């Protein structure tokens, strides 16, 4: 794979707190890479080092052959950053906000005017371009926030949790925009703690927890790390823990854990093992009130890898 972005052994501490403890990843041209992890996992710190806002304590970031540091103006021309929080001037119009950042990127006047019009069209703000951003809805501000990152047509677009606090309609519009960008060949690095977003958008996903990249691959590859097992949820009436122990003892059952009144089992070929599971639960004196069989998703992968849920 020809990597457009390559991070090697990134580390960063704040005082005694190690926010990032060895993150290595690569993103190819035209690829959408998702960095999935709960709040506080080290996503934003990693992004800040990749975008040249923070100097790594160790490791390096290389973008199109240029090493990224806070002083690397050449490397920064390849990158568009969309921060998690709105980073716009509310007292300026959308056009003025875009023009301000276009100037900072050094876009010449003719290209600047053309790109501003194009970006306003892409983010759907052409009609309101002359209004102050303070008069926009939350979704419109989010779109302007993204538009600023697109202005100079970067080779790599970094989006740091762009849908946090966004209504469902705007969220869908943002996700569609990202899909469109990827389709025209832009590399996208997308951080989120929403499993559905990562599954929908990303060609490859890195799972980050406590500052460490603990797994990486396509969705299929990650799900395969839990041995292509099926997930069965049994809602029980009675002793769930005892029922889980009984299930665990069955051959072919990889794991069985009690979560409140539910027994969660990972096992091969759920269909053939289901009768035995129901019998095992009944033998403990508990009864089964509901059964759900599904393929594992990234949430389950995260749970399997870290022992805690993605949104904990």
């Amino acid at each position, binding site marked *: 794979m020809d990597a457009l972005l390559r991070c090697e052994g990134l580390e960063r501490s704040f005082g005694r707190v190690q926010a990032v403890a060895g993150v290595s990843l690569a993103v190819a041209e035209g690829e959408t890479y998702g960095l999935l992890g709960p709040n506080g996992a080290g996503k934003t710190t990693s992004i800040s080092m990749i975008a040249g806002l923070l100097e790594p304590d160790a490791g390096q970031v290389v973008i199109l052959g240029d090493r990224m540091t806070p002083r690397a103006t050449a490397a920064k021309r390849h990158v568009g950053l969309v921060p998690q929080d709105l980073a716009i001037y509310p007292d300026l119009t959308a056009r003025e906000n875009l023009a*301000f950042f276009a100037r900072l990127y050094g876009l010449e006047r003719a290209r600047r005017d053309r790109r501003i019009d194009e970006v306003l069209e892409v983010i759907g703000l052409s009609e309101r371009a002359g209004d102050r951003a303070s008069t926009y809805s939350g979704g419109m501000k989010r779109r302007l926030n993204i538009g600023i990152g697109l202005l100079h047509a970067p080779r790599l677009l970094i989006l740091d949790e762009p849908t946090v606090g966004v209504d469902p309609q705007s969220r869908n519009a943002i996700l569609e925009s990202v899909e469109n960008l990827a389709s025209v060949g832009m590399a996208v690095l997308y951080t989120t703690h929403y499993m559905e977003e990562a599954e929908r958008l990303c060609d490859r996903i890195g799972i980050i927890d406590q500052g460490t990249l603990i797994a990486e691959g396509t969705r299929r590859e990650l799900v395969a790390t839990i041995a292509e097992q099926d997930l069965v949820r049994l809602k029980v009436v009675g002793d769930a823990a005892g029922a889980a122990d009984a299930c665990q003892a069955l051959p072919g059952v990889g794991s069985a854990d009690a979560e409140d009144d539910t027994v969660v089992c990972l096992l091969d070929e759920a269909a053939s093992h289901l009768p035995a599971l129901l019998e095992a639960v009944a033998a403990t004196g508990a009864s089964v009130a509901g059964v759900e069989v599904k393929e594992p998703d990234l949430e389950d992968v995260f749970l399997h890898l870290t022992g805690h849920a993605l949104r904990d």
Partner: protein
Amino acid sequence: MTRALPNVLTITRVELLRFLRDRGNLFFVLILPLALIVFIGLQFGGAGGYEVGVVAPDDDPAAAELIDRLDASDSLTVVALADEEGLTSQVSRGVLSAGLVLPEDYAAALAAAEPIRIGYLGRPDPGSRSLRTVVEAAVADQSAASEAAHLATTAVGRPAAELIPVAEQVRADLPQVTVVTDTVGRDEVMAEFAALGQFDLGASGQLFLFVFLTSLAGSGALIRTRQYGVAARMLSTPTRLPVLLAGLAGGRFAIAAFQAVYIVAVTAVAFGVDWGDPLTTTLLILIYSILSAAAGMVLGSLFRNDSQATGAGIGIGLVFAALGGSMMALEFFPEGMRRVAMLTPHGWANTAMAEIVRRDGTITDVAIELGVLAAMAVGLLVLATWLLRRAITR
């Protein structure tokens, strides 16, 4: 680094634009300074002298002559009033510097060498005492001819009315006796302001008050730039930290300079305020604007909440202005307070401006003041840069 200067100017420009967009600023920046300058000017009095009100009998040639004598003085303007009540009111409110009430039949009494009682209304200030001396001299001058004529009447037995013109003629033909006066312990305070226009003193004081105050109060915008995350986002563009800091500092300077240029230009055009030697005044304002911008940056870096910064800025700005002679001229300060004043930039700036405006001072005359202000500006700028750098990168 080729983008450094354009990016500094881009950031500076947008900071100034945001400042001008804030309608709340416009009252404090555009209207309030002029209102205070006008208010202080009205209190200070007429341009270059005093207005004296006179209540005089109609068609009285001696009264008219006395008025002409008073009006002939460079530092006096006579305003005729109809009655004593109006005169008292205007003098007591400071509209007029003093008042004179001439009796009915003033000319006749003068010609008859009868005792004459002229009422003088003064204000409780040193200027009024000086005015009284001027008025007394004019009256004495006028009555001298009458006294001489009566002396001659007594000697030659011709009527006084016939001899007064002769006495006047003789006095005009004789060599004048001139009394050369050395003033000992003169009223230096009043002498200091004697050559000032009505709005000059208020304009220079308010200039330094508002340039500093606007810079400090505007520090909230700097905090909002950080809070919005725009400052950090700028660093993700090909803009290095020193360029960002220079741009933000440039924005603060542009706001301070805008305030200064506005006050100087409008007061010069609208009120005829004399700002002295253009080069020296420009240099003083330039240094003072840099100093004020740096002070605003310090405040904008120390506080995390823009309301707190704005409140503190207004408080500090007003206290410094009061201590530094922008609300009341330093000449009225007791000695101890004058020393305190020189701990503030306002004290040095007002001292320099007094030299430039009142004594036609040039750069060499105010070199010490400019040097001290420049040193303060550099010190504050270094501190502000360090604090702002820390605030943006933490």
